[in-house]
């Protein structure tokens, strides 16, 4: 039996509370029931916070989302008093608990959200699938033999199955958009600097990581972005504030957009599955029917090779940072048995880089980002349209790196991040929109990239697409 509240987005649930039709505690209790009902099958919520959530719901709540239940990822932020294991077995073993809120979580709480649990993530967010050895795989509610994508796959499954309307997520190579695509959700990666990573961090992966949420509706994503945006003291990156609230972009006129369509993976590193090509081409026709101009076009710089190598220098150096931080938290050195084989292999590689290698990698990627920006700035394109992933949602186990050759697993992951990761490097906003379903009934996301700092363009377009081809009635087989 379906719980009616499971069909409502956060905005609608908040309206019920605002009208006095329901109390925050009723909303939260219903969400807890849904988690208890479907989570055993999905393994999305790994740290239930039910008692704490009920206490919060009984307390003084304010803000536009008063009493609305949400989940937060077990990575990409600290939440006071809650476990934070980042998919790592040693942190689980020592029972690490965070002692403060990152700004993002404090802002979500101040907006009235109540966290009912923390969600599964691959170790340190390093894989585009959510199958950490320590907590086991999260299953896709559309097909439980499939993965949810990653790294925000726990949040993806929780939102897609109707446990909660909003799941916190972070994206350093596609980790909001990939599970958005795999789980049939709306996933916007905001611009670099749009949402502060403080006070714990200034940046992650040299500015590649952006945080936000996975939602079912565009309006939820826009309204939550209004809650989360805004510079905090000491932020290293700041994004220019929008001209008006993002919520106002929902339903606003998009104008006629000039769109480039790309259905071949950058540098053709991997083939693109016909279903993913079909999804992007179908979206292109939809855009044309809405009056936009679509033509085959993409930034030439997108095909430049050697970028992956530079990105890996940055990524593996940050893995060393993660391993060192884990050692600090555990109070002892970390050995190969304390982390997954791929993480260890990455950290070993990371330790071989010199400081000049790191500087060269970042400089090279920044210079490349400038060449990329020219396509939007000089050539006059508003949006790049691609598939979100080069393959449908992964079969569970397919992406788990073999212990004897972990890099092989990393190479297999390319198909899932090839379209998304370039825009972590450039820092541009990008989104996955659930417009397509494969013949097997799997969601296939469509990926849109705007010029720097133009989340407004993306949100207007997403809202237009949501109206033209609504997805809110589509529900996966596993649903609360």
């Amino acid at each position: 039996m379906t719980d009616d509240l499971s069909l409502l987005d956060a905005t609608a649930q908040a309206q019920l509370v605002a009208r006095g039709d329901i109390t925050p505690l009723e909303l939260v209790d219903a969400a807890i029931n849904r988690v208890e009902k479907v989570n055993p099958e999905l393994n999305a919520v790994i740290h239930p916070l039910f008692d704490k959530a009920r206490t919060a719901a009984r307390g003084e709540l304010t803000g536009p989302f008063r009493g609305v239940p949400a989940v937060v990822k077990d990575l990409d932020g600290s939440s006071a008093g809650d476990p934070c294991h980042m998919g790592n077995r040693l942190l689980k073993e020592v029972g690490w608990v965070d002692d403060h809120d990152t700004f993002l979580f404090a802002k979500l709480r101040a907006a009235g959200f109540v966290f009912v649990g923390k969600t599964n993530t691959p170790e340190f967010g390093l894989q585009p699938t959510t199958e950490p050895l320590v907590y086991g795989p999260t299953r896709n509610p559309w097909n439980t033999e499939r993965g949810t994508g990653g790294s925000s796959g726990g949040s993806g499954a929780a939102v897609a199955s109707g446990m909660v309307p909003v799941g916190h997520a972070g994206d350093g190579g596609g980790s909001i958009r990939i599970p958005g695509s795999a789980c049939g959700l709306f996933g916007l990666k905001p611009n670099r600097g749009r949402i502060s990573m403080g006070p714990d961090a200034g940046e992650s992966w040299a500015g590649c990581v952006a945080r936000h949420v996975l939602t079912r509706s565009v309006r939820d994503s826009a309204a939550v972005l209004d809650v989360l945006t805004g510079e905090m003291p000491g932020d290293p990156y700041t994004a220019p504030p929008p001209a008006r609230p993002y919520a106002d972009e929902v339903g606003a006129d998009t104008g006629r957009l000039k769109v480039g369509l790309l259905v071949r993976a950058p540098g053709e590193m991997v083939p693109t599955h016909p279903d993913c090509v079909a999804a992007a081409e179908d979206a292109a026709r939809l855009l044309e029917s809405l009056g936009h101009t679509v033509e085959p076009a993409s930034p030439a710089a997108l095909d430049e090779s050697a970028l992956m190598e530079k990105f890996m220098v940055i990524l593996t150096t940050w893995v060393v940072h993660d391993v060192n931080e884990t050692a600090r938290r555990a109070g002892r050195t970390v050995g190969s048995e304390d982390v997954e084989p791929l993480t260890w292999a990455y950290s070993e590689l990371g330790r071989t880089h010199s400081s000049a290698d790191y500087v060269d990698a970042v400089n090279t990627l920044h210079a490349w980002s400038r060449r990329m920006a020219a396509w939007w700035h000089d050539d006059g394109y508003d949006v790049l349209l691609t598939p979100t992933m080069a393959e449908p949602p992964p079969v569970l186990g397919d992406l788990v790196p073999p212990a004897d050759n972990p890099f092989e697993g990393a190479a297999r992951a390319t198909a899932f991040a090839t379209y998304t990761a370039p825009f972590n490097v450039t820092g541009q906003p990008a989104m996955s929109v659930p417009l397509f379903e494969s013949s097997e009934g799997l969601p296939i996301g469509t990926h849109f990239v705007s010029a720097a700092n133009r989340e407004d363009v993306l949100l207007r377009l997403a809202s237009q697409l949501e109206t033209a081809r609504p997805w809110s009635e589509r529900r996966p087989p596993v649903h609360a």
Partner: protein
Amino acid sequence: MDDLALLDATAQAELVRRREASPAELVEAAITRIEKLDAELNAVVMPRFDGAREAVGRDDLPDGPFRGVPFLTKDLWCFTRGEPLTNGMRFLKEADFVAPDDSHLARRWREGGFVNLGFTNSPELGLVPTTEPEAYGPTHNPWDLGRTPGGSSGGSCAAVAAGLTPIAHASDGGGSIRIPASCCGLVGLKPSRGRVSNGPEGGDLTRFLSVQLGVSTSVRDVAALLDVAAGPEPGDAIIAPAPARAYADEVGAHPGRLRVGIATSLGGNETHPDCIEATEHAGRLLESLGHHVEPDHPDDLDDRANGVAFMAVWMTNAAAALETWGTMVGREVTEADVEPLTWAQVEQGRTLSAIQYLDALNQMQAFTRRIAQWWHDRFDLLLTPTVAHAPPPLGELPPRGDNPLADYGRVVAFVPFTPAFNVTGQPAVSLPLGTSGEGLPLGVQLVAAYGREDVLIRVASQLEAAAPWAGRRPPVHA
């Protein structure tokens, strides 16, 4: 005495606008001044008089706010298409390196109407706060030819202080705009990180600490110069928050009642009494103007550990820079190609691993977060001396000997107040409000919150009106 030499860039531009002087007349007068005085100063190491004459001879001189105003470009990092760039390095000088393209900033200078008369002296790669590169020899301070003009923008500062041009390009990775501005009696504003693009040639991380603008005798020049230079270029990784209005409009605008913390020593450094007096005098002046001034500063500025992270990043950047220039020229840069201090820093930088560098960046980020809180919670401005003592004699600052890094203590002791704000990316200005016992200029530094150049320009303009310095000129002046 050349009357034009007494006019700031804004006034010279106004003459052109009113057709009371032509760009060619302004440029010829400046060339005459350089030819007359630069033999003594050694500020302009690569004159470009023919190019300047050609630029004003054509009828396509861009109609920017500084149309026809003579200008000098610092010989560090900034590419001017078809022109040499040596960064104070013998290596690039001997290789006859020519910039393949314009930096955004060089293009903006040209679009602003400036006419470039040449390139000014810089220490090798801008690594020391004095301007005495082996490649070109020392630049002399027009206030006392035996003394340093400071650095690394010492060539530009000596030139402007002596009236060769009214304004010049400068850059600041550890104090290199503010320090020579202090030594030469000029206004030197280091903008916020991300205010002025370092693109498109790349190197954003190498130049993470460094931001460009320029120096002048007047606050209004610097404000208008910032209007020309400021604003993101496509693909910039870091973009400072946009100002509410033009910086020129902040000149003369009332700053309101500002909360000012004053500190004359950080981490127990020794500050010369003249510098303390200059700073306290500025504090009293601010109080007399209605601001609230009290002894206070962010505690973290006292923590020397932050200097360790700074030096890790600084020396890695030196190593990365050497790689870059070796690649550009197509030949590896060897020990014989660079000065001993450069090589020592590069060698040190090369011993660092990527994770040590990342740890240093993350420490700097945490430091920035804590420092920012002081401004966020309690204060609008920090007031400090710009340097810890008057400009020393030439030859005294450059680290020497077999172990130049061990000799670096003198450099740190001279400039304890400026590098922290290259780490935090905050805007900071040096204003020529003090004088040493020997009659040498001493700057005071004002630091605002990130992105708040508007606050600095308003208060600087108020101080300039209250205690004008335009009449003070060095003995060597056009």
